[in-house]
């Protein structure tokens, strides 16, 4: 299946000249000039009709200009081309045994219809409202931030001063590391090896 995916990516990028943007969960996101192209790879050992149509219907949730599904030759008989045509989804078959020649477009994809722009320029209104809200929020956040910073600074200064006074009043402490003997060096460890003593006696 990895080989099929690899061949498909080579075909799309080298033969068709698409640019690969990303790949996740069997979905390849590519760019054909300014168009977003999505290719859903469905490479299975055994195909089931219901599962195939579920995968096809899931393509609707992606943002694209053109969409394809890619299947192995064994999946082709289960796909109704009329259904794909009605959705505008293209079909690519990948036969890994034939190498790059085994990648074929069986059905072209139709560009997806973009929603028509409404009469009123809602985008401009929304962006103006957003800008006004953001400005107000920023102003309020800054005020809160400054107040919080000041309170925190005063609290920390007091805590550090208290700790300093407390430590000055205590006798010096010897850390456990200072109390413990230093770990033996590799040379000492070898000298402590029983075998070294036994072998040296053989002189």
């Amino acid at each position, binding site marked *: 299946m990895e*080989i099929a995916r690899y061949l498909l990516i080579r075909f799309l990028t080298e033969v068709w000249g698409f640019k690969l943007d990303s790949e996740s969960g069997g979905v390849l996101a590519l760019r054909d000039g300014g168009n977003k192209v999505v290719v859903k790879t469905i490479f299975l050992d055994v195909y089931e009709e219901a599962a195939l149509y579920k995968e096809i219907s899931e393509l609707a949730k992606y943002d694209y200009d053109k969409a394809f599904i890619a299947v192995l030759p064994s999946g082709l008989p289960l796909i109704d081309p009329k259904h794909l045509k009605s959705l505008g989804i293209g079909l690519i078959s990948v036969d890994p045994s034939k190498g790059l020649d085994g990648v074929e477009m069986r059905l072209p994809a139709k560009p997806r219809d973009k929603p028509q722009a409404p009469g009123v320029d809602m985008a401009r209104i929304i962006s103006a409202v957003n800008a006004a809200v953001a400005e107000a929020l920023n102003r309020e956040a800054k005020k809160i931030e400054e107040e919080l910073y000041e309170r925190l600074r005063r609290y920390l200064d007091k805590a550090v001063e208290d700790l300093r006074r407390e430590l000055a009043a205590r006798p010096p402490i010897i850390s456990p590391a200072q109390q413990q003997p230093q770990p033996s060096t590799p040379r000492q460890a*070898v000298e402590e*090896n*029983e075998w070294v003593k036994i*072998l*040296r006696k*053989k002189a």
Partner: protein
Amino acid sequence: MALSALAPDYMYRGFFEIFGKIAEETNAIYAATILPQPLAVAIAENAVNCVIVEGGHGNIQVAPISFALIREGLVALNRGGAEANAITRELLKDMGYGDVAREEYAVEVVKRAVGLVPRNLKESIKAARENPDKFVAKVRLSPITEIEIPREYAWTRFLIGEIVFNPRHEEFKSYIDQSRIKIEDAVVGDVTLYGEMDLASAIISSLRSVSLEVQERVASNVILSGGAFKWDVPPGLEEYAVNSVEKIRIMLGEANRELAARAGVKMVKDPQYSVWRGSVIYGYALPLSLKWDNINKEGWYIYK
């Protein structure tokens, strides 16, 4: 230099001759010495009374040590990591990965990734057959090659580890009968390397050759070393798979409960380097005034 405890005399002579030639050409060698690998492991572990079980690729040596290697107690097995590789290769062929099975590297990777040492072979296989989904595994050998152990073969993961410890099971019989794996005795010099002897029997047989006075002390410290004992237990399979230390404990318990209660089994800290570390310490401590003795196989062979 460390050689197998089974190495025949001509091998010692051969190496001393090689060192002699290098000494002549480079003038860089003053003296050389050779020690048995199990002794090197014991030195690295600072164990003066112990049984070293050194599991290599081709053979396993069980060597009792009490202030020196007890050569009479040496038991050698004619199997090791190579047999685990062999069964992995045959299983891969059965699973339809004959092309992958041709590459020794791939077989080694698959063995390390999916091989399991069963707590009890029969029970572990039964569990894997009843619930194969729990035991299926995938191994990625390269960005484009992935091996998947199918559900119907999930139980065979236990054969890979078990063959090192005990190949006397019905499950291995068909592979041996068809000559797909070869486990048989071999003779090197005057030493017989047993093919099918299980590890607990080998340890017990080795201990029988140790004098009763030190037997208990030696048995209390069974030290495993070498790559053939490097087996992991994947999380979630602890009920069915064990590491080498636990496996030896279980096998000793099944063979002799009293011995198992007294035996301490442990694995060396760094199995790959313990022989090297022991050799370095041996070379450091062995007095240069002690000349090489062919009978005791001890001392320095001086070249200058």
